[in-house]
């Protein structure tokens, strides 16, 4: 009973706190008067923009927003890549050397794209300079890039000029991500998460064995990892490790932290379009999908593994930490895959097939809150397509948020939806065709298919979690997932910006009796159907071959 109660409390806390942060996001990204606590940042921001050489004016078109985004992101990635390739001796107490080129490339692309898929064991390969200067740096700027894109798209959909990328980037950091991370870090710190530059400690255990305590500057790293939907661990065990997630309370707060910014972004969208009924319905839609997934996973984990019933009764504790228990690890898994955080507080590989099914469903759909900023944009794409389809069905001109939906919008939207299956299914098919050695599968049967598909789905959705038994530290995996990481990040961003910018330039139509209203329960229901048909059916065959087949095996 207690896990369910705590899950309800955690999710309720998200619903209750999202509107206040949503209002703050609206004020920040719509240039409204700021509250006193961050008004003092204004002169500094103007000064910094001037030093950068940017007057902070809004971009005239998609290209002038996208260009600085791509250039700066390329430079962020190159800086991190250099640090990883030539790990210098400074702040590197254990003297780790540079990474192999394919691993360094994969790691920097993975963190640059806000994915944080890790094919390495950080505490055995990265010194503090790399952890902070490459990884923490990318966690901050990739989340800020996502937020900037999200709000540029929202601006476009609400008919505003699209904005200025560097200004958005800076404001995302100084007014949202950094203050929030400092607060969360302080909480994590007093709850037991280390924050020190002292080297990891080698100790002698009571039985005389040697053990490394992988301490480091973790508290702040952990905070942006959760809030920025990053998910990459300071330690390989990620949020299962007591140094990243020491107590039941930190576990619940970290679960909340994954959800709060994306939920608030949805709330802010309603304020931008001046229709909070619209955003509340979309929030209800996303939240409904999340709650169903959470229910499925928690129940499956609590029911436990029937193959072990000779020895064990009760929940599935394989690959789980006792302080969280089976059910709350299920909650975390669904939230982390839905929000594209990708942090794990237990092994998803050892989770029940229905939990893995839910996680994959989230990765395929990409809107159960979805990536930082980008999840919101994907949701608008689905809503746009729902408008288009209902318009076709009832023979009305499709309109969304007061503007006509026409061919260019539908083309861009379809493109956004097609990118994902391309970067998941094709490489997964190639890898499976290459045989078990190339694939590095560690669990037999249909679960092995899930391992491979999951890795690419996680990369292309910019999530970062994995079925981690997979031997993915090879050049094949590093290079092919790098393609999925990049394709799943920058192609949709470009298409989304183009879509939003085109939409903004359309004339506003006065609502007539013939207008199909989109802020109704009926339309929200249609959107769900569109989501499931367009988003998930493409992937149904692999779901059937993977987790569904595994679930049936366990049940028989």
């Amino acid at each position, binding site marked *: 009973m207690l896990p369910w109660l705590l899950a309800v409390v955690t999710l309720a806390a998200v619903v209750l706190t999202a509107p206040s942060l949503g209002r703050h996001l609206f004020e920040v990204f719509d240039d409204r008067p700021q509250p006193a606590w961050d008004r003092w940042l204004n002169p500094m921001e103007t000064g*910094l923009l001037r030093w950068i050489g940017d007057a902070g004016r809004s971009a005239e078109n998609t290209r002038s927003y996208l260009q600085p985004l791509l250039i700066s992101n390329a430079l962020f990635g190159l800086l991190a890549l250099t640090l990883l390739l030539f790990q210098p001796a400074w702040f590197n107490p254990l003297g780790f050397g540079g990474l192999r080129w394919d691993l360094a490339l994969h790691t920097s692309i993975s963190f640059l794209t806000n994915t944080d898929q890790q094919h390495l064991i950080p505490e055995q390969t990265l010194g503090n300079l790399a952890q902070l200067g490459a990884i923490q740096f990318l966690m901050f700027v990739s989340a800020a890039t996502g937020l900037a894109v999200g709000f540029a798209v929202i601006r476009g959909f609400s008919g505003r000029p699209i904005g200025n990328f560097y200004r958005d980037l800076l404001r995302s950091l100084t007014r949202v991500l950094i203050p929030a991370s400092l607060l969360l870090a*302080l909480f994590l710190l007093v709850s037991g998460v280390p924050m020190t530059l002292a080297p990891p400690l080698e100790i002698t255990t009571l*039985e005389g064995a040697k053990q490394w305590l992988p301490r480091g500057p973790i508290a702040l790293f952990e905070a942006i990892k959760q809030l920025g939907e990053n998910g990459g661990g300071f330690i390989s065990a990620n949020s299962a490790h007591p140094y990243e997630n020491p107590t039941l309370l930190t576990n619940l707060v970290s679960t909340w932290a994954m959800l709060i910014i994306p939920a608030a972004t949805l709330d802010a969208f309603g304020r931008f379009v001046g229709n909070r009924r619209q955003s509340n319905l979309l929030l209800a839609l996303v939240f409904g999908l999340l709650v169903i997934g959470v229910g499925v996973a928690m129940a499956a984990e609590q029911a436990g593994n029937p193959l072990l019933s000779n020895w064990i009764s009760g929940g599935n504790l394989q*690959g789980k930490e*006792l302080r969280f228990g089976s059910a709350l690890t299920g909650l975390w898994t669904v939230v982390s895959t839905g929000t594209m955080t990708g942090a794990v*507080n237990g092994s998803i*590989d050892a989770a029940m097939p229905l939990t893995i099914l839910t996680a994959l469903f989230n990765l395929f759909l990409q809107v159960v809150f979805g990536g930082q900023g980008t999840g919101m944009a994907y949701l608008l794409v689905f809503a746009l397509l729902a408008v288009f389809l209902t318009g076709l069905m009832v023979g009305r001109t499709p309109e969304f948020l007061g503007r006509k939906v026409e061919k260019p919008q539908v083309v861009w939207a379809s493109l956004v939806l097609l990118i994902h299956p391309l970067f998941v299914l094709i490489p997964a098919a190639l890898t499976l065709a290459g045989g078990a050695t190339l694939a590095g599968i560690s669990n*037999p049967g249909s*679960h092995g298919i899930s391992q491979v598909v999951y890795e690419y789905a996680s990369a292309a959705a910019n999530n970062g979690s994995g079925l981690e038994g997979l031997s993915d530290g090879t050049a094949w995996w590093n290079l092919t997932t790098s393609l999925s990481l990049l394709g799943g990040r920058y192609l949709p961003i470009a298409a989304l910006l183009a879509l939003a910018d085109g939409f903004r330039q359309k004339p506003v139509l006065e609502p007539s009796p013939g207008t199909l209203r989109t802020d109704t329960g009926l339309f929200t229901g249609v959107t769900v159907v569109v989501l499931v048909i367009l988003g998930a059916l493409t992937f149904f065959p692999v779901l059937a071959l993977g987790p569904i087949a595994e679930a049936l095996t*366990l049940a028989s």
Partner: protein
Amino acid sequence: MSFTAQLLRGLRVTLLLWLLTVVVVTLPMLALARLVAPDAASGSLLRTGDQVVGARLIGQSFRSNRYLHGRPAGAPNLAASNPELAKRVADAASLWQIAGVAQSAPDLLLDSASGVDPHISLAAARQQLPRLARERQMSVAELEGLLRQAQEGPQGLQAIEPVVNVLRFNLALNALRAP
């Protein structure tokens, strides 16, 4: 705007944001950590005398019969459907049976996620008390007292069920009776 100008702008942004997100935010946090939670900041270390013997949050591996044993580690990624998992569990269960535990608690048969789970369930701890009483020549009642001291749980929002911190228990055990 020319590409060179764009590139220059990008370089400045990179430098600025690197300083901001690596140096400017981390240093005050490190200083604050020393101030408000020096113990947690440096890893919640446990000491016997001057010697660091472990960390309160981090489990250690115990094999000797004179210590309370923690959760197994080593294969957290075995899938639910993997026959290897059932085999591992069966092997572990029969080892516990040999040690006198007829039906061992699930957390003693299934791998932790981190490999350093500091806890076991109360049931898993109680099953081991007769062995410890024999090995350490103590009464089970005495050991129950130690168990209560090393207990953590939902009241303190530390764990979802009442659990025992294995390292803290074993340290208390050593303090009472030399290992």
